[in-house]
């Protein structure tokens, strides 16, 4: 009797388990299928100050019910955003109607056909007055594969008092050598990003491009055939600047772990002098003054200019970033998605996004909005910088190239102008051929 009862009770469990499974399964299915209207578009956005969600709402309202845009938040850093989108796209996720994409990762997604081709008329309407660099970042194999939304660039921020004390005329273009000299003579720290992170690639690329070179000679080549341009005069020049700053301690003790935010903290402090950084510096510093955590005189002391030159007679090539909009190839609502994209990137929206969230427009027309000059006195410098900015290497293997550079060019004090360009070239080439781990 006892056994039977035990056995019977034992049999009860799988039944309960099966029932539970069924209930959970049904719930999960209904959660997936429910609430999806036919005209609802999903826009995968990078985190911001709420600007993209506002634009989504405005465009939904303006469409008169033709579509509604729902935003879905991606991880905070660009590399994790790429990881998530690439995995979803590779798995054929149909919910990727609109995606906010970081330009360097676009070729990787365009090459296997993960992005829907942009209709000719949309191309025409969305490329007018768009800065050169942003268009280059939106293009793969001579075809526009994404629509430029906003464009980011680094400018040179400086403390007027330090520049004056060092006797630098900031109305004229300055070189890295002048900045290093000034920082040394004034015993201040240069704000550069020496951490082993994406910001390192941004710096190396800007220096190499400013010296007239390119990290990759033939970006459209396959992994086995890619030829790197690091082992060149431009690469050596870039290595010389980075290694001098590292070895002579010109970047301060935090240099090897310094990213954009850490540079800003240093720049706002007593040792702040010159810093290359994105426009977010301005709202962040004004915000700190308003919040009472920073003195007004620091804000008053800040000046700005175009990214420093590598050689005196050659215009610099500032870093270029930003966000472009792509439409997933598996999306079932591509027509509506492109309609929404056109609304999102409208000149008015770009101007408003700059004013409210601090992200500069890719369309030069937007800079004529009077609100911009008011909130961003350096808007003209930003626009000029965008016109001469150079994108990072456009290759489907950007992640390998970038991580390879980060691992061989950081910390700055370990960079040797004679060997680093060559050894990093060899390393990245081996990684691309599948002969090395990263």
């Amino acid at each position, binding site marked *: 009797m006892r056994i039977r009862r035990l056995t019977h009770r034992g*049999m009860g469990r*799988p039944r309960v388990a099966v029932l539970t499974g069924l209930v959970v399964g049904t719930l999960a299915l209904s959660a997936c299928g429910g609430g999806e209207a036919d005209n609802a578009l999903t826009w995968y956005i990078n985190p911001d100050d709420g600007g993209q969600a506002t634009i989504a709402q405005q465009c939904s309202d303006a469409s008169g019910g033709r579509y509604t845009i729902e935003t879905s938040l991606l991880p905070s850093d660009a590399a994790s955003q790429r990881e998530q989108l690439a995995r979803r796209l590779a798995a054929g996720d149909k919910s990727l109607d609109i995606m906010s994409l970081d330009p360097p990762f676009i070729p990787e997604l365009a090459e296997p056909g993960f992005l829907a081709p942009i209709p000719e008329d949309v191309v025409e309407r969305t490329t007018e007055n768009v800065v050169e660099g942003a268009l280059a970042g939106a293009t793969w194999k001579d075809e526009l594969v994404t629509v430029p939304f906003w464009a980011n660039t680094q400018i040179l921020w400086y403390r007027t008092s330090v520049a004056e004390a060092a006797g630098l005329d900031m109305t004229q273009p300055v070189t890295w050598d002048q900045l290093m000299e000034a920082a040394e003579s004034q015993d201040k720290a240069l704000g550069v990003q020496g951490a082993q992170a994406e910001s390192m690639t941004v710096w190396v690329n800007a220096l190499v491009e400013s010296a007239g070179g390119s990290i990759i000679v033939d970006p459209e080549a396959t992994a086995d055939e890619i030829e790197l341009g690091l082992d060149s005069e431009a690469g050596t020049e870039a290595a010389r600047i980075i290694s001098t700053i590292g070895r002579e301690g010109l970047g301060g*003790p935090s240099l090897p772990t310094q990213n954009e935010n850490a540079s800003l903290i240093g720049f706002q402090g007593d040792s702040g002098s010159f810093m290359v950084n994105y426009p977010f510096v301005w709202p962040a510093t004004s915000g700190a003054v308003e919040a009472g955590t920073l003195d007004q005189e620091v804000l008053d002391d800040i000046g700005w200019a175009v990214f420093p030159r590598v050689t005196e007679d050659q215009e610099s090539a500032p870093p270029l970033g930003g966000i472009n909009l792509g439409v997933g190839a598996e999306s079932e609502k591509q027509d509506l998605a492109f309609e929404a994209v056109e609304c999102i990137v409208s000149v008015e929206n770009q101007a408003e996004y700059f004013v409210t969230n601090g992200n500069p427009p890719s369309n030069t027309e937007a800079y004529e909005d009077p609100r911009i000059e008011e909130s961003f006195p350096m808007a003209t410098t930003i626009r000029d910088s965008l016109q001469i900015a150079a994108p990072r290497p456009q290759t489907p293997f950007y992640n390998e190239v970038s991580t390879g550079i980060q691992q061989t060019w950081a910390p700055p004090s370990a960079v040797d102008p004679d060997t680093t360009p060559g050894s990093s070239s060899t390393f990245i080439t081996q990684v691309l051929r599948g002969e090395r781990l990263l």
Partner: protein
Amino acid sequence: MTSAIPARTTTAASAEPGPHLDTGEDKGNGRTGKAPKQYSERVRAERRLGWILAGPAFVIMLLVTLYPILQAIYESLFRFRLTAPGEREFIGLGNYAVILTDPVWWSGLWTTVLITVVTVLVELVLGFALALVMHKALKSVRGLLRTAILVPYGIITVVSAFAWFYAFDINSGYINNWFGWLPGIDQDLNWFAQGPTALFVIMASEIWKTTPFISLLLLAGLAQVPDELTEAAKVDGATWWEQMRKVIIPNMKAAIMVAVLFRALDAFRIFDNVFIMTNGAYGTEVLSLLAYRQSISRLEIGLGSAVSVLLFICVLLICFVAIKLFKVDLAGSQGGK
């Protein structure tokens, strides 16, 4: 995902089903031995009951551990990049050859072993001391004491990693300020700019976080040592150290070995602390991060799977050494003497 799952579930796969099944079989055999025919139906029923009870869990284990492990082994034989699905190519053991001839693998292995050995040793000593404190504490404060000791273990690793990172960070940290009087520490010390100091912070965080776990396992071991034995030793005039060395520690050897094995397996798969604090920069690369970088960042599923499989083999080796050579008795420590 295949990369992380096999390694993560090893502890459960190797440790948990064992004791349950063993206990069941022992009972059955014992009774069969006494009178086989008379009880055979009952034995069969009990066995059936055992399978019915453990079956669903066993099937789920197979699905969530065996399947991904086999899939990872299969994928590791290909050159396959997620964003280039058309170029998938069978290369046999090619990925393994690339990994095992790469200095990055060996330096990662060395760092991982160093972290494992140092953290487990320190945790064992600290954990034993804490277990003794908890064991000897007055009844009135015992609950409070155990809660206090267990708090770090209750904190999510990523959260504790961030807390430690910000404490030591050169821009926002307070450690340089507080400990500036110690030789070698000053305002300009950037803990995460070179391997040794970065590893120190990573290991300290790891030790702070998981010592409570080891002390809990050791406390269970301490509770198993019969009081009569220590009393007898005391009567014989044994000092505290002699009681420890000759009575208490030998009697809880099983608990110590299980604690060491569990922690070693865990420590060998360290990921969160390194990922948050340095992301593998400046000589802090560990094997889990290496696997992550290949399969998640690079989307090289083949190469990443091969790293995961090698990591899995390392974990199996640790289990094998512990169970076969040091004869860790997984069932015994759980009270099934």
